[in-house]
């Protein structure tokens, strides 16, 4: 359902994406791995139009994203930002319910709050945090509020940018299960960026590894351990020695 072909993006002399090809099927969970600074976040921002690509095409459901009516297009997406990106002028529950409170088909405040409390519960946060402000939460709690906001309107397509970084192992497990559940039960299409190999194995149907501005390897999760690709091998085993330079 998402098709990326020959995507390029440079910031000045920094050529981040040099021709990325990627396919994500409907209702599938794609995990993108790759070293820090390889352009994983930029890649998903390109799909959402937050970053304008220099070249290449991105189509969703067969139509190029730039040709789709912007509001209807964005209404199908949920996005968890790497830094959570919570609105610090709004309390937690209004962050989560942001989309529900606004626009056509907005819910009454009471109902929207109920939905927000429910989504917070699913990311392991009790009702006592609902009226706090984001600045009063720990980093991991902010991340989970961001996650609750991303799934609040039950979007068809969800992007998670490092959903488990900064979480303890138990909470990371809860979030991994949640993402898996959203894909299998709600039939959502997901792209998750993560460095955490436990998450990769828990979440992924398919894995793509980004390196040198291109997709170095991609395939089903079952093939990850026998990819035969020295880059992938080095990455998944976290070795300092190998073809990937450690100075970048």
């Amino acid at each position: 359902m998402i098709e990326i072909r020959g995507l390029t993006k440079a910031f000045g002399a920094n050529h981040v994406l040099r021709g990325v090809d990627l396919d994500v099927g409907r209702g599938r969970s794609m995990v993108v791995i790759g070293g820090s600074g390889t352009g994983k976040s930029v890649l998903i921002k390109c799909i959402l139009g937050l970053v304008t690509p220099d070249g290449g095409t991105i189509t969703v459901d067969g139509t190029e994203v730039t040709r789709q009516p912007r509001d209807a297009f964005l209404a199908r997406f949920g996005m968890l930002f790497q830094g959570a990106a919570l609105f610090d002028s709004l309390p937690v529950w209004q962050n989560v319910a942001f989309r529900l409170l606004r626009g056509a088909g907005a819910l009454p405040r009471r109902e929207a709050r109920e939905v927000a409390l429910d989504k917070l519960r699913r990311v392991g946060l009790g009702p006592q945090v609902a009226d706090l402000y984001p600045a009063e939460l720990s980093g991991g709690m902010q991340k989970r509020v961001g996650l609750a906001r991303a799934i609040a309107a039950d979007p068809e397509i969800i992007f998670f940018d490092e959903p488990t970084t900064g979480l303890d192992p138990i909470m990371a497990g809860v979030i991994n299960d949640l993402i898996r559940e959203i894909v299998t039960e709600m039939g959502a299409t997901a792209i998750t960026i993560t460095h955490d190999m436990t998450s990769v194995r828990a979440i992924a149907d398919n894995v793509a590894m980004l390196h040198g501005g291109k997709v170095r390897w991609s395939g089903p999760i079952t093939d990850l351990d026998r990819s035969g690709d020295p880059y992938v091998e080095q990455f998944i085993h976290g070795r300092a020695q190998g073809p990937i330079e450690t100075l970048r």
Partner: protein
Amino acid sequence: MTRLLAGLGAAALGLLAALGRIAIFAGRTASHLVRPPFYPREFGHALMQVGYFSLPVVALTAFFTGGALALQIYAGGARFSAEAVVPQIVAIGMVRELGPVLVGLMIAARVTSSIAAEIATMKVTEQIDALVTLSTDPMKYLTLPRVLAALVVMPVLVGVGDVIGIYGGYLVGTQKLGFNAATYLHNTATFLQATDIVSSLVKGAVFGVIAALMGCYYGMASDRGAMGVGRATKASVVAAAVLILAANFLLTQAFFAA
């Protein structure tokens, strides 16, 4: 020499380009006036921030300036035995020039800087991107309510400033300079004309739009990181102050240079 000229030329071109971008930004803001959805909550919040919470600083500025003005006019007028004009000149000076300009500059300091810092921080922490992914146009949600609030509330602030400035002059005049209270007020009231007051309020509205627009523009255009936020804040206040003074000259010209 050519280097100097080239530098000047580049600076002038840069200034024109910036003005062009600001004009486009203003146009885009205005275009959202007629396209729903609207965000009344944000507007109400901005009204409080720009208007209500600015009242103390506006009142103090105007009060002291009005008092100082009375002292100066008395001292200056005494040189050719024209001390009696204090009420009239204080009124004209406050209403036509000092009220709007000082309130405008105080708003640039207080409101422009806080808008720019807030929006720039939102930009840097990806909150603006998050707004977009939540189908909310940042121009509509952040810029329009602030600019509109400043447009509505600044004439009120300037009006308040004018009155308090005149009152400052009145206090100094009656308590220190020996003016008769009733005569002072009578002279003030009869001397001021409708154009004086209208020009004062129009200036207020224009300065308000400039102040809010500069905060939003530089905030949205900010670079990444804390330094970006600092730069955006500084640039917004400087631009707002300069544009307010330039607009003041043009408006004074339009109203009074007949």
